[in-house]
């Protein structure tokens, strides 16, 4: 990336976009070059379809073929195996023979770039201006920091940035480097250290007890948050180095006091995609009755789950969140005027409810299958309640430490310490001396911790 950055800012402005497209495709093709053609083909199709078919005709009915193409590609590459497996299972149950299961390698980031394609076509059909130049659209589609795992950027968020020349700015570089450093710290120091113990709990042959399962689920909730928000930090920071601003993807999700708030803080660009391109159209088309809105919530969250992976555990995870959203609205309705004590009680109650729901959901998310979830519960029910069956003391201490650290930072955030500190005279005086040391220590810790780094969890989606 350093080399690309140097060349990017070193060449003439008019070549920069072309260079970024080239670099992005080289990056993508370095994994499996054949899939570069899929990305390119889909890019050219979406650009041409948006520019020439939807915009020129001005008719929304032409939107559907474009959506079908994007979704079909997603289904073929991501869900064909899952669909055939399920049909085959049913066929066997009905006395037939099993079907051969297709073995298709999942193209990296397909869930992201197909959803982005759908968003583009819908937005153009809704009146957004399309990208006039193919190169602009190809950059929007393939710009490497967001290509593999988002954020899912909407055209209007980046349209002007792509069309206008990007200018070097020291602030951008400083901000970008800080975000990248923060991302590496979360990934290498926190997420990767939690991974082995989470893997141990969810191993097929493991027999966790209650303590192990709790530690495993807490650990996974923290791991996936640090892992994915780390990727988003690195993506946002890297884009900023090139002069582009990406939307945020996380906003302290574990501070959410209701499931609805959780989804406005967790993977924000996906939840807003689901809201705008799935839930709202469904709710509008179902119209009227409350039951229909609930159905739209459940369908949207089911699709959200399925988007994460071709397995029933993901569907159930999505539906579970649908139930949480509905229960959250019933139990903790948003009312403006309440006595402060009641308001606080509802807030804390809502936080406990949300976190319980979210972390139970992580169990479904991480388990390999429904039978794995059953196995874990069976094992927990048979083991003594408070005796670890699997994890060593130091692993339990690690989870507890990272959990308490996260909790502590979240509490500081809630109390507004960041703002208070920024305005403190003492901090302002020592900041120039302390910050370089903090950054140097963070770099050192990342280097020392990085002896066996793992792939980002969200790459699989």
């Amino acid at each position: 990336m350093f080399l690309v950055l140097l060349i990017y800012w070193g060449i003439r402005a008019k070549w920069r976009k072309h260079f970024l497209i080239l670099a992005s495709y080289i990056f993508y093709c370095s994994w499996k070059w054949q899939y570069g053609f899929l990305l390119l083909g889909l890019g050219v199709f979406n650009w041409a379809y948006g520019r020439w078919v939807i915009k020129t005709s001005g008719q929304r009915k032409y939107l559907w073929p474009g959506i079908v193409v994007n979704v079909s590609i997603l289904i073929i590459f991501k869900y064909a195996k899952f669909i055939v497996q399920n049909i085959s299972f049913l066929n066997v149950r009905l006395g037939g023979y099993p079907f051969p299961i297709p073995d298709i390698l999942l193209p990296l980031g397909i869930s992201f770039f197909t959803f982005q394609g759908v968003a583009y076509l819908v937005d153009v059909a809704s009146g957004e201006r399309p990208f006039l130049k193919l190169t602009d659209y190809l950059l929007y589609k393939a710009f490497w920091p967001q290509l593999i795992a988002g954020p899912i950027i909407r055209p209007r968020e980046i349209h002007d940035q792509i069309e206008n020349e990007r200018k070097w700015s020291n602030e951008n570089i400083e901000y970008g480097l800080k975000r990248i450093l923060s991302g590496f710290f979360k990934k290498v120091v926190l997420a990767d250290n939690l991974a082995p113990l989470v893997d141990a709990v969810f191993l097929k042959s493991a027999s966790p007890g209650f303590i192990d399962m709790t530690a495993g689920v807490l650990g996974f909730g923290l791991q996936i948050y640090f892992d994915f928000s780390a990727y988003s930090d690195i993506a946002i920071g890297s884009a900023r180095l090139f002069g582009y601003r990406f939307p945020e993807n996380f906003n302290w999700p574990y501070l959410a006091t209701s499931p609805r708030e959780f989804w406005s803080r967790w993977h924000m660009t996906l939840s807003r995609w689901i809201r705008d391109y799935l839930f709202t159209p469904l709710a509008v088309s179902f119209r009227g009755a409350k039951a229909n809105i609930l159905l739209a919530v459940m369908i949207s969250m089911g699709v959200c789950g399925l988007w994460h992976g071709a397995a029933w555990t993901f569907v159930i995870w999505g539906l579970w969140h649908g139930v949480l959203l509905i229960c959250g609205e019933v139990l903790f309705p948003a009312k403006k005027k309440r006595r402060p004590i009641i308001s606080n009680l509802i807030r804390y109650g809502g936080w406990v409810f949300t976190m319980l729901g979210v972390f139970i959901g992580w169990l479904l998310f991480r388990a390999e299958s429904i039978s794995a979830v059953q196995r874990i519960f069976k094992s927990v029910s048979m083991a003594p309640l408070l005796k670890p069956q699997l994890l060593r003391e130091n692993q339990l201490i690690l989870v507890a430490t990272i959990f308490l650290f996260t909790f502590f930072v979240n509490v500081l955030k809630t109390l507004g310490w960041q703002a208070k500190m920024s305005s403190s005279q003492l901090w302002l005086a020592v900041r120039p001396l302390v910050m370089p040391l903090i950054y140097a220590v963070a770099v050192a810790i990342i280097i020392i911790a990085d002896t066996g780094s793992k792939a980002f969890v969200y790459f699989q989606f």
Partner: protein
Amino acid sequence: MRIPNILQAKKAQVIQFFLWIIVFNSAICVWKNDLERNRQQNLLQRQRVASSGDAMPRYDLSTGEDTANYLRFVPDALRQRLIILSGMSQMYAINDQKDEDQTISEWMDDLLKASGSRVFGLAAPNICNEEVLMLLLAMTKNASTKPAVFIYGLCFDKFRNVDLRPGYKALLRSDPDLIIKWESLANEYRDKYPKATDKMLSTLKSLNEEKKKANNSVETDIRRYLSKLVPIIGARGDLNAWFQVQLYLLRNKLFKIKPTSKRPQIPSRYQMNKEFLALFLDEAKEQDVIPIIYIVPLNPQAENPYIPEEYESFKTWAKALCEEQHIPFDNLESVIPHEDWGEILGGPDFKHFRGEGHRRTAEELVRRFRSYLVPN
């Protein structure tokens, strides 16, 4: 070409940052030099011990860190009866070491050499049963290293450990045939030993991921290049290990854990290790290797971390397993008198003895299992 001026905005802070990085690297250089010096001294001491009877090492001096490198010293099994002795740190650690001291495997080798058997030690700290199984597979793969007898000293608290250490992973990763053998064994025994075989497949999966990463040549090359250039990157493995040890010490201090603090077994890990041991025995027999199991000596007067009922049950289980499978077994728990044990952290060491303890253990092993160790 326009060169951006990154230092313009916060020049002083950037300079400070790099100064700190230089300070850290300098400190690490000094630390690393000290570490290397200590290592060299230890290695020389071990080399001296190893070479007192023979010119070649007679056990894996790297104690699991670089085993592949020591396999070339294994006596040729095609020319003499090869015996492998495996186990935890008791096999090679010598308290209050003297020049004439030797490890168990070296004493055994001295005792058996004349009768046509050679002994080689493959031990590592806190070795677990998955690792011993891997060593068995690695050794039986080639006729020249295939042992006639594989002795394994069972240590109760090692049944808390799982997974292959990096050195053993490297050994497995370096040999495609061994990987195939590992996988086929896991598949073959899937129904009989579900926990152990599932773990084997999981090990293989992590190995493949590491392999993919290692094959990513640009990244690997950059890392290799930088590790030569920047001390903190070059020393990060050691720093990581040091840091982990400090965390353990902190944990021990905070929770008042001593080496002898009573620690119950972790059921799932214990069960998995039990399966691994049974699988090890099955595979040894399958390969025409005689497995010998013994319970390692413990200091009779030192406190140990075992819960008595658990430990008794473990010994009963191990004995029953061996009897059931007709495997030579003995309990050497109390063969070493108290005076032969050293001290650790200001108290008696319950697991590692002085040089004399190694000699006595070797003699006991030879005496009790002589019929299996000496060729007919």
